[in-house]
């Protein structure tokens, strides 16, 4: 279980609080969505939860243990991160990228063995990218890249996956593909996930719980069907929105109507 206990963060000593007194809990097996307008601190919160940044105040606990007292390697064995964008400075094939996910499990001079390669191949298969294994990463389409990056995070064999806007640069088809992939990983492999996103309908369709963030603070949190209300959406985005239940899928759907003053 990953939890944040009154966590605050500022990038510069005299800068504003980007994350302001956030307390939350990520139960094992949960699939939680983090919603909020641009600059609300979602990405920073994910960085704090993954321990790549240290809170200015408060603590992030992994299984009851403070994250900043664990080594990066130990954290990376239990938490994997999927960043918003991955840009390569040099050329690697998809399988090379995925094998890099094995880094925290290997010693300094250890080379990936048959097990590591099997895990990497399984991760590629799970994300539907097995046939891309030997293709150069930079030649892949946006959706293929995103799925390979998710495969790399899966190859890390961490029980917890933190994803930063995983569908942001994808077209409608890939959005569906990635979201159903995430749902499948959560339900079939029991991977715990926190997903930051601007896609309210994605959040509504796959997340069991939502955390609404604005100005670094948690505005509301709870089960999706309780939190995703027109009132909350207006407080979150200053947008008047209708929330419906979609007939076929049973998901909630959000239709933005108009911008309103704060």
């Amino acid at each position, binding site marked *: 279980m990953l939890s944040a206990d009154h966590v605050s963060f500022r990038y510069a000593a005299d800068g504003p609080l980007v994350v302001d007194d956030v307390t939350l809990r990520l139960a094992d097996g949960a699939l939680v969505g983090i919603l909020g307008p641009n600059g609300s601190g979602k990405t920073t919160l994910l960085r704090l939860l993954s321990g790549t940044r240290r809170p200015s105040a408060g603590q992030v606990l992994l299984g009851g243990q403070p994250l900043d007292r664990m*080594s990066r*390697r130990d954290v990376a064995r239990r938490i994997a991160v999927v960043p918003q964008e*991955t840009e390569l*400075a040099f*050329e690697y094939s998809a399988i*090379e990228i995925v094998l*890099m996910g094995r880094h925290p499990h290997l010693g300094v001079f250890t080379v990936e063995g048959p097990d590591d390669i099997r895990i990497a191949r399984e991760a590629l298969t799970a994300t539907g990218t097995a046939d891309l294994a030997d293709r150069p990463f930079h030649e892949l389409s946006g959706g293929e890249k995103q799925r390979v990056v998710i495969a790399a995070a899966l190859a*890390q064999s961490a029980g917890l996956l933190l994803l930063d806007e995983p569908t942001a640069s994808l077209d409608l088809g890939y959005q569906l593909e990635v979201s159903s992939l995430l749902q499948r990983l959560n339900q079939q492999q029991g991977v715990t996930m926190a997903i930051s996103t601007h896609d309210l309908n994605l959040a509504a369709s796959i997340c069991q719980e939502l955390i609404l963030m604005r100005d670094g603070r948690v505005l509301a949190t709870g089960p999706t069907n309780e939190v995703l209300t027109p009132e909350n959406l207006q407080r979150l985005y200053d947008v008047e929105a209708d929330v419906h239940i979609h007939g076929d899928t049973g998901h909630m759907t959000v239709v933005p109507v108009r911008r309103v003053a704060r």
Partner: protein
Amino acid sequence: MNIRRRLLTVVSLFAVGTVAVVLWAPTVGSTSISLSRAFDPAIPWEENVDAQIFFVARLPRVLSGAIVGASLAAAGVVLQAMLRNPLATPFTLGVSSGGALGAMLAIAFGLDVGLLGVSSIPIASFGGSLLAMGIVYWLASSQKRGLSTNVLLLAGVTLNSFFSALILFVQYMADFTESFRTIRWLMGDLDVGSYSPILAALPFIVAAFGVFAILPRTLNLLTLGEDVAAGRGVEVVRAQRLAFLSASLATGAAVSLGGPIGFIGIIVPHLVRLMVGSDHRLVLPAAALFGAAFTVLCDLTARTIMAPLELPVGIITALIGGPFFLWLLVKKS
């Protein structure tokens, strides 16, 4: 797919090639010598002219070329990965211009005295490199969070031009003979004369390569970006520190030995990536070995092509390396 076997095969192939070049290069020169005669233990040393020429006259120069080439090529690989910039060279971060300034001052002020068989010029050069490394490191880490690669780059580039101006100033004020010596030094010279300068530089280079040995997989991850690397379990700031300090140390020691020989630190890493891909567990050792062989061959060309006139090796590395590299680039695309 057996990664270990691939690593061993590639590195062994490069090693065999490099050893062959290092053994062959000393046999070439104004007097041709026979390798088997030079290594024949049956002939006493006093009578074995081939062995004397091989070990005393030519091998030190070849070895210094190999060491300088390996250091510059490996430092180039490490810095390019750490800065996520394929255009970085060992000289980008100001270390070599610090080294050059140190050497210039030693020459201009006539401090050419020997110390345990090592001239004061390489010592001053190494001191200048360490000074430059210290300044750049201090600037880049003065910000609160870790090491800023942006500040590292900007500080290095600025320091380069600042030191270059100081070098020009020193040259301008020096008399004609000294001025020529300083210019000659800047063109690179691997004719170290004996084994002492090599032995003096070797501990620093061995230390740097000791750090290089633990870096490759971390470098792979650093090229994906700091956040990704941290998420995969890399202690990013520590890795960047190690990479910067070891690469600077190797560069400083190499420059003190052979002068700032350009082009090796950028062309060799790129050639090697074209051959073996981007996995730094292959690129780093292969570039070190290829850099050694490349530099020895360039120096061989420099001392034979217009014999008895010897050209500065720095001219040859750029003259051979540049067009060859461009040809490869065009051929590949």
